[in-house]
Each structure stands twice: as C-alpha cells, then as structure tokens.
C-alpha cells in the first residue's frame, strides 16, 4: 500500500494533463462535426424536443446525438470491464474480448442470421446477449474445478474465443452472402437512427457500475496473490466469478448494442494507470472516463473524415486503428511491474520422452498416408489407385507438405514465445507478426489490380519483416521485458486487424479474397512453395534445438541467466527473432492460425513434458499432426467446399484442450 501511495504522489503533478488533453480534443471534434451538420445558432432547436424542428435538426437529434451518447456509454462500460478483468485475472492483457464474450455474441448473431434471419433482425439484443452469456458459462464451467484460478480463466477464455471464432468463420465462408449485417456488427458500427439503443444500454451499464462499486474492496485484494488474499478473509471461490460476471455482463451489453469494439477495454485502463491511477478505486473511477472520451474521440474523428472513408470505416476498426499506434507510443513510458505470481497450476508428472514421441511420430505417418490416398471425389469416398495418383498428386502433396511444415513451425514459435515471455497467452499472432504478414498481403492485393501468388507472397513477407523489425526495435528499449514485447505485439496486431477488418467490412472483392487467407488456408500452395516451407522447417527445428538451453534458463529470470553465463538480453532477442521468422514463414503460406501456436505447447506441457527440449519436440509433432489432419478434413468434410486448415485445427483441438483443462 505504501508503495502505491508513493507512486500516486509522484505522478500527481502530471495526472491532470492527459484527461484535460483528451477532453479538449473531444470538445474540439464535437464542435467540428456538429457545426458541419448544423449552424451553431440552430443547435438549441436540435437539442430541445420541439415539434417544429427542421430536417438537419432532426438528423442531429436522432442521428448525431444518440451516436455521441452511445459512444460515451459504450466506451465507459468497456473500459470499466477492462479494469475488472485485469484486476481479477492479474493479467494486463485481459480485456472484454479475451474471455470470448464478443466471440460468443458474434457467433450467436451469425447463427441467427443464417438460421432465422427475422429473429436476427427483431431480437438482435437478445440473441447477442444469449451468445455472450453462453460463452461466459463455457469459460466458467472449464475453470470451476480449479477454483477459477487466474491462469485457467485466461486460457479457457482464449479457447472459447478461438472456438467461437472458428465456427463463425466456417459459417461466414459457407453463407457469406447472407451475412452482410453481421459483418457490419463485427466491425463495431456506432451508427444510430433514434434513441432506442441509448435508452436500452444506459440503465444496464449504470446498474453494472453500481455493482462494481460495491465490489471495490474485494477487487483491491486481488492485487495480492491467492494465498494472501484468502488469509485476509476473502473467499476467492465466490468473489472472482462475481466480479467477472459483472464485467462480462457489462461487455455483453455493449457487444449486443453496438458490436465488437476492441482495444477500449485494454487502452482505457492502461491510459488511466499512466495518468497515475494506481489504486483500484482510482482506476475504477478514471478508466471509464478515459474510455468514454477515447471512444467518443475515435467516433467523432471517423465522422469528420471525408465521406469516402467516413462511411466505410466502422468505428470499432477505427478505434483499433488509432489505438494500436497510441499504445505503441505509450509503451515507451509505461512501467509495467514484474508479473505478479499467479497461483501455480498443478504440474502434471514428467514422463519419459521416447514412447510418446514414437507414438506421435507413428500417428503422423499414418495421417500423411491417409491424407494423400483417401478422399472424397465426385463419386463419393475413394482410395486413390495408382492410376489416379498421377492426376491428383499435384493437388495433394504440396499442400500436405506445407501444412505439416507450417504446423511444426508455428508450434515451435508458440513454445518459444510462451517460454520467453512466461505468459500463457503468448502466441505468434500476439507477437503481431501474423498481422503484419496479413497487412502486407492486403497492400499487395490492393496495389496490384490483378494480384498473383508471387505478388501476395512478396507482400506478406515484407509485412512480416517490417513488423518483426518494429517489435525488435521497441523491445530493445525495455531490454526485451516480456510484457513490453507482448503489449507491443498486441498493439501491432490490433492495428493490422483493424486494417484488414476495414478491407473486409467494406465488402467487395478484396474481402472475399482476404477472408480465406486470414484464417489459414493451405489452398494456393505450388510445389516450389512447399519445398521452401519444408527447407525452412528443417532449419527451424535445428536452430530451435540449439536454443533449447536458453529456453530452459530464461524463465528462471534475468539474474539467474546472467549468473549462468547466458546474456539474458541477447538470448531473448535471438529467440524472439527466431519465433518471429518461424511465424512469418508459416503465415506467408497458410495464414495466422492462432490455435496451433497457442495450444500445441500447452498440450505438450499438459501431457507431461515441461522441459524445453522435450516440450518443443512434442509440440512440433502435435502441431504437424494437427495441421495434416486439419488439411485433410478441410478438403473432405463438406466436399466440394474446402475449409481453412487453421479453422479445422481449432475445432479439432479445442474440445480436447477443454477436457484437459477441466481434469
């Protein structure tokens, strides 16, 4: 307590500057957009409910004004939810999106739009809320037996998120044409044409705010680790789900009212802490204020863009568009505390490596054979004979080789990232490299009027490289502190996702082209590409094997590492660069694929291989196996349509991981 009070005092002289700046910016933007719609003299007529209002006044009263109000409410609510999540989960990366709430709501809306379009229109609030609540219960159910341990909840949330996301993608691919309104909602559009949404959202958010205020004391205790908090008389078993429940409900309300808006839940609390709000009480007060201003500013900025951009850009995407770079800039000054000790998971007993490795290897060989020879054709399921082989090998071998190689590379990258950063949420796409690759691919597709494969590949390689350089440059400033690198990665990811979201939300052919690539497709693999990926994989495996000692030592902390003669900073840099290159190599071929990179290392650890070398080997085998199977299923499951391998991998591995987590 003493320490935090001291920090507040130290930060106090500057504390008012940031909110004042935000307030001024918001006021100027409001004046700018409103006076563009209506001369100042006519403002009273728009604001007061008079019957003789002119059309521009009505447009302000029923369009501009409720939109401004909903931006403030939604921003405050998301930011408040972010504070609670980060406090309860003791993870600075947690935000409303991470628990799967938005993904669940999005999935529910997608299903409704496909199955019962009328329902999706008339009962949007109810449908989205039901999906969000279901996702929340799934997360809770997975972590119930573990007493809602912080790490478990973050992991379970990620799984639910990925799972809902994967199902949404499949529905999107198969039913794309009937989902326009769902896409808009996914982009986070604040457009209003009446006060109905405000009237719906405001009382609900206020109720959640009151509930949060009642929880201030227990929330404060979460700054301690589980043991100390229990000693102080807090029942973690009940307080944690209660606080999480309030935050999830809050984000579900926002999600169902205006759609998916990321970053505010992350950015609001971070900015509030930068302003000097160190105590939970202060954060709960200031973060909503900052969040409301942030979203309002972003929304006003979107509205004052020239019409071409302003009408295309969903505010949710715009938020991430400005939010990402802002966070990157802020990172230079953030002092993130060393990660607080989260309660230790029960480590499974260690096992001998030989048998499981042989077993997994055997499974992999079997999967490769089946994938090459047994598949659906126009005449149903068939084993491919020697005669047909010459016709089909060209379509099957390269993509199989690429899937296998990419699976191995991403699994290795994930293992390295999780060990170096010590964060269970670390995965290649959180490093921002996959996002950079996507961005490069998008740029190539836009610039070249008829994009070809080499152009797309060159674009994504360049994008991945630029992101890698940025991350390394930013990391150098902080001595490659794990949280700094991850936050920088998230900022880059958010930025690139915003751009990709913008491209896909505006519809048109780019969207159709990008959406499959976005989720990992082994589709456009030529033999030359497959050979290149294979070579990369072999090199990667050798290099990762050589780096295993560093991976063993680094999690012990920089001091231990230096004492053991390993330059911690240099070792971290090399390992991060390796992980980034692995990610770029895989992304260029088959898209970001967050699942394998996140989960393969977890599976290896849960199977009983916590040491670096064995974890990497087992994770690589699991990654390769998952991707080979996924590619095969993606080709054959709903023949003749083909599903992205990354999405299938998520569907395959998700339930298994959920079961393991619950055990």
């Amino acid at each position: 307590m003493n320490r935090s009070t001291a920090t507040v005092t130290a930060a106090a002289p500057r504390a008012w500057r940031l909110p004042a700046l935000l307030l001024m910016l918001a006021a100027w933007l409001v004046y700018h957009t409103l006076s563009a719609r209506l001369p100042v003299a006519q403002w009273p007529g728009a604001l007061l409910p008079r019957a003789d209002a002119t059309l521009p006044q009505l447009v302000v009263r029923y369009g501009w004004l409720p939109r401004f109000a909903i931006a403030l409410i939604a921003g405050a609510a998301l930011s408040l939810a972010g504070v609670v999540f980060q406090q309860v989960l003791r993870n600075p990366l947690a935000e409303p999106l991470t628990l799967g709430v938005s993904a669940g709501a999005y999935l529910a809306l997608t299903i409704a739009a496909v199955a019962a379009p009328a329902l999706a229109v008339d009962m949007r609030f109810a449908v989205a809320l039901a999906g969000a609540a279901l996702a929340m219960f799934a997360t809770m159910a997975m972590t119930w037996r573990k007493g809602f341990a912080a790490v478990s909840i973050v992991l379970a949330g990620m799984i639910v998120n990925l799972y809902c996301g994967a199902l949404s993608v499949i529905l999107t691919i198969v039913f794309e044409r009937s989902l326009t309104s769902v896409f808009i909602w996914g982009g986070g559009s604040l457009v209003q044409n009446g006060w109905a949404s405000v009237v719906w959202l405001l009382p609900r958010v206020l109720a959640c705010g009151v509930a949060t205020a009642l929880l201030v004391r227990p929330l404060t205790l979460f700054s301690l680790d589980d043991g100390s908090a229990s000693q102080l008389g807090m029942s973690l078993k009940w307080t944690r789900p209660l606080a999480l429940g309030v935050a999830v409900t809050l984000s579900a309300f926002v999600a169902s009212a205006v759609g998916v808006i990321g970053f505010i839940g992350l950015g609001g609390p971070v900015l509030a802490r930068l302003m000097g709000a160190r105590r939970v009480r202060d954060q709960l007060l200031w973060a909503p204020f900052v969040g409301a201003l942030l979203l309002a500013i972003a929304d006003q900025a979107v509205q004052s863009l020239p019409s071409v951009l302003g009408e295309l850009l969903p505010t949710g995407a715009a938020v991430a568009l400005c939010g990402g770079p802002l966070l990157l800039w802020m990172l230079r000054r953030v002092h993130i505390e060393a990660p607080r000790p989260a309660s230790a998971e029960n480590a499974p007993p260690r096992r001998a490596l030989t048998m499981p490795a042989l077993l997994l290897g055997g499974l992999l060989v079997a999967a490769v054979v089946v994938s090459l020879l047994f598949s659906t054709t126009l005449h149903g399921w068939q084993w491919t004979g020697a005669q047909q082989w010459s016709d089909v090998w060209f379509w099957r071998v390269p993509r199989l080789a690429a899937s296998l190689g990419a699976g191995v590379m991403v699994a290795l990258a994930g293992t390295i990232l999780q060990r170096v950063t010590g964060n269970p949420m670390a995965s290649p796409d959180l490093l921002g490299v996959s996002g950079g690759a996507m961005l490069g691919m998008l740029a190539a597709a836009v610039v070249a009027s008829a994009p070809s494969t080499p152009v797309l590949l060159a674009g994504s390689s360049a994008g991945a490289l630029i992101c890698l350089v940025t991350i390394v440059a930013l990391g150098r400033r902080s001595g490659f502190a794990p949280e700094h690198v991850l936050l920088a990665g998230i900022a880059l990811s958010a930025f690139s996702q915003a751009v990709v979201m913008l491209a896909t939300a505006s519809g048109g052919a780019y969207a159709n082209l990008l959406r499959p690539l976005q989720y990992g497709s082994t589709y456009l693999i030529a033999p030359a590409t497959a050979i290149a990926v294979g070579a990369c994989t072999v090199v990667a495996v050798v290099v990762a094997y050589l780096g295993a000692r560093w991976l063993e030592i680094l999690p012990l902390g920089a001091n231990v590492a230096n004492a053991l003669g390993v330059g911690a900073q240099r070792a971290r840099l090399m390992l991060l660069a390796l992980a980034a290159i692995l990610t770029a190599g895989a992304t260029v071929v088959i898209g970001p694929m967050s699942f394998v990179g996140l989960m393969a290392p977890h599976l290896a650890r849960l199977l009983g291989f916590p040491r670096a070398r064995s974890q990497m080997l087992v994770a690589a085998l699991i990654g390769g196996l998952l991707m080979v199977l996924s590619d095969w299923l993606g080709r054959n499951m709903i023949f003749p349509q083909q599903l992205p391998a990354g999405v299938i991998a998520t569907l395959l591995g998700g339930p298994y991981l959920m079961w393991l987590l619950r055990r």
Partner: protein
Amino acid sequence: MTASVRFNGKRRLALAGLGAAALMAAGARSARAADAAGAVSAAASISGSAAGSAAAPAARVVVLDWPLTEVVLSLGVVPVGVSRPAWYAKLDGVPALPPSVVDTGLLYQPNFEVLAALKPELIVITPWHAPLRGLLERIAPTLTVQLFGPGIDVYPAVHAATRKLADALGRNAAADALFAQADARVADASARLAGFRAMRRPVYLLRPIDDRHIAVFGRNSLFGGVLHALGIDNAWQDFADPQGMTEADLGALARHADAQVVTIGVPSGVAAQLARSPLWGALPFVRQNRVQHIGPLPALGGLVASMRFADSLAGALQGVTQ
C-alpha cells in the same frame, strides 16, 4: 470511356423513348473499344493451348462467378460446373441453373480435383481469381472476364463481357439477339417512365441491410447504369465501391430532400424496424410517401438483370407523377 456514355441533362430529355436504346448501343460499343484499348482485363485473352478454341468453341465450360454464370446462361450455354450453384439461386439469378450443373466449391477456393475431373474446355474467371490462374491453366484454358473494378462502370462492362464471352463460346448470334432484346426492353421501360422523367426528380436506389444501415447504389453500379440509360438522375453522387454500392447512414440520405426512393429487396423484418425509426420517419421522402419497393434482384448481373431492373423500376415509378 465514360464520356460518350454520360450525357447532360438537356440531351437526356431529348432522348426519351427509343433514343435511349440507340444510346445504350453506343455505350456498349465505346465500352468494348475501351476494353480492347487495354483496360485492366485486357489480359483476358484465352491462354495457352486455347489459341485454337476461338475456331472450335468450347462446349464444356466451368464458370467461377455468379454474375458471369448469368451471362453464360443467357447466351444459351449451360456450364458443366459452377461455384456453389445454390448461391446463384439465392442471389435471385435468372435464367435458372439446371440441377445437373456440378458444384465446384467455394467462389475463390474452387476444388481443383473436382475441376480436373470435369475435364472442362474453358474456365471463366474474374480478375479476383488471378492468384488461381496459374493452377487453373493446368486444367483448362482460362478466360478472365471483368464486370467490376476500380474506375470501371458496371453497366458498360456488362456489355463488353457479354460480347467477349459470346466470342469465346461461339455464340455471337445469341449475343446479337440478347443485345437487341435488352435495347428494346430498356426502350420500353424508358417510354413508361416518360411521365416520371418529366419531373426531373433524382432517385435513391437503396437496399436496407438492417435497421441502422442502408446500402445505396452509386452511379457506377449496374442499376445506376440502367437508371442513367433511362434518363433519370441518381440522387447518390458520392463514392461507391467497385461493385457500385456503399453503406450510407440515414443522415447522409437527408442531403437530397426532393429525392424519390426505390428500395430493392428489403430483408424480412427490416421494413418494420425502419418504420419504427424516428430518423427514417423524419426523412422527407418518407414523410411525403415517395418510397417505392421492388423485389429482390442481383446487385451484379448481366443484361438479363439489367432488363429485369428496368422493368421493375418502370413498374414502380410509372404511376408516380407528383
């Protein structure tokens, strides 16, 4: 390319009735000339071994696009394979696709093994399939046909594409008949709209997406092109994406208080929601009952879709005289 297609208000008035038909033909010709002059899709010559296929037209055709499927069908050729045939019907495609047509998988991810098994003589693709082109050419000669793109007006592009496909398929006679029919239908619609046109009232072509978002068709869209050929002003003069559509909030539509609105294919339930919206209710064309509805039509299509739109529009607006 567009200079000869777009014409000013005075000329437009003089060009009612049959005059419009002549102009459409001119538009089509100029579009064809521009296309030959090397616009984006000029790369579309039939590739590889297809050099001889102009003489011996392809009988087994695969089409990896729904609007182009309409064009091929309207030329009297039934493809052996089409991407997701069910979607052609869902997008309200006419002429209907026979059930015998094989599903080749997703639009931008066709199943190569299915394509190879169909042994096509020609594969028709759009410029957006360019990443696939190299692989497709392993299977059959591939023809790229462009209906939309940056800086291209869809309506003239449809004429050029129809002619190009007719050349590749050896169906020039069918194309001539189709062009003549389209000219006649547009001329007929133009005659029916003489009364409406005389009011010189601009028209918004809208497709509501949900209660808060509305897609509007711009000048470069297929419907925008037909509207123009009918001598009616499009009230939406701002940006539209390459397919000719953009999303507009209701406030943006208030800029043209005197406009007429035609909604195309309102999703079920959305009409009721719009009716409840105070902003929608405040818009002058709603207050003064200047909103007409026409049934669902494909936003992108060929001459058949153009004719259907011209007919529907004439049906909706011919009674509107004040």
